[in-house]
């Protein structure tokens, strides 16, 4: 069952990627103020996938604290790690883009920095998990951390609207002040969907791995206690 779903998701992901990739390549070179703008179809969906992941992890964390079921914890951990990967992808693609558009890898633009801070925060989350060996303690503390982290994600999300700096303002239609040219926006959403599929696959694999690790852990402990 689980496997079938995963394969299905993979298929959807591959399909969208092929079809959407072709669309994107065909798009006219019409946005001129920033070079190599097509990277936006990777850059922005990656960010949004990451945000989706963090929010999902928030929900899972709250569920864990409410129910005490370790499965929610494993889920939150998996999703956060995958989201972190996408956030990193956003950052790196942004840096590459920055190199083309602005000629530098990095600038102390508040927008970029808030994303960096967000990344650091969730790296902290991962470190925290590694530092604690007791499963329930790990689950409780990292759930708390995840909730705190989401406050900052909200901040990162909003900061793009507050700052008027080097980094472009919102472009997506559903946000205030957003809206791209006709036909430019839809492929973005498709890519987002594709990435969400990929993220789900990765997260469930990671979760699986986490469950195995817990199992191995308890087996080893059982062995030691005799």
């Amino acid at each position, binding site marked *: 069952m689980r496997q079938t779903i995963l394969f299905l998701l993979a298929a959807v992901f591959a399909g969208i990627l092929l079809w959407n990739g072709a669309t994107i390549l065909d798009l006219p070179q019409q946005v001129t103020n920033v070079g190599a703008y097509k990277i936006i179809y990777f850059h922005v969906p990656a960010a949004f996938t990451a945000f989706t992941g963090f929010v999902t992890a928030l929900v899972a964390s709250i569920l864990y*604290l409410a129910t005490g079921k370790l499965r929610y914890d494993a889920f939150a951990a998996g999703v956060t790690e995958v989201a972190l990967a996408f956030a990193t992808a956003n950052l790196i693609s942004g840096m590459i883009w920055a190199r083309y558009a602005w000629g530098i890898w990095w600038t102390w633009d*508040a927008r970029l*920095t*808030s994303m960096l*801070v*967000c990344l*650091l*925060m969730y790296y*902290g989350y991962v*470190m*925290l998990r590694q*530092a*604690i060996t007791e499963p329930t*303690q790990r689950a*409780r*503390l990292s*759930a*708390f*951390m995840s*909730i*705190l982290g989401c*406050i*900052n994600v909200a*901040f990162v999300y909003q900061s793009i609207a*507050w700052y008027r700096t080097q980094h472009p303002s919102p472009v997506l239609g559903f946000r205030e002040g957003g809206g791209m040219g006709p036909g430019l926006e839809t492929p973005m959403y498709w890519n987002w969907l594709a990435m969400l599929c990929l993220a789900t696959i990765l997260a469930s694999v990671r979760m699986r791995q986490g469950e195995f690790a817990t199992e191995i852990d308890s087996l080893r402990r059982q062995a030691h206690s005799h």
Partner: protein
Amino acid sequence: MYLRQIWTIAAKDLRSEMRTKEALNASVAFSMVILILFSFAFDQAEDLKGLLGGLLWLAYAFAGALVLNRSFARELQNDCLDALISSPAPPSAIFLGKALANFALLMAVELISLGVFAILYDVRLSGKLGLLSLVMLLATWGITVIGTTFSALTVNLTMRELMLPVLIYPFLIPVLMSAMILTTDLIAGVPIATNLVWLRVLVAFDIAFTAVTVLYIDVVLVG
């Protein structure tokens, strides 16, 4: 009952701090030195006015770290935390009590430093004090809550000192950032209306962090 417990904890912290004045002395001295060092470091900068808010809050943040670090460390000394946790006081009362004490100490340090700052950098504060104190109250509460939360979060860990700084600083940045921008503009005489968004950020942060922490601190303190 709840309020009395909060007050008991806060009073205890303040009393032991007043007895040694350890953290207080250290952090006032620290912030003085930062202010002095800054003036050396940046004497080449012409547009110093544009830096003042940043400078002030950096000094506050670092000086504050000294107070906040002491806060839960004080409970570790004779494993006092064990006694607190096994008392019927709910963890949120313990947390709020300590946060209140820290807040009072931080504000004291900040007010002293503010005076020195105004003299050293020749800043006229009259007429701006109202808004400035609003910003200070809000941002300081934010710093306090975050600092206290994370020292509580890590107090049970064997890797405590390792984790604390890595976890805490990213969270502090938004609060500090807002406070810096607001302060710089206040000093420069920019009307607050243009910066209302930052004020709102501060308030939102304070409320969000306080609420989440008070709700979930049990989870954290009882290991």
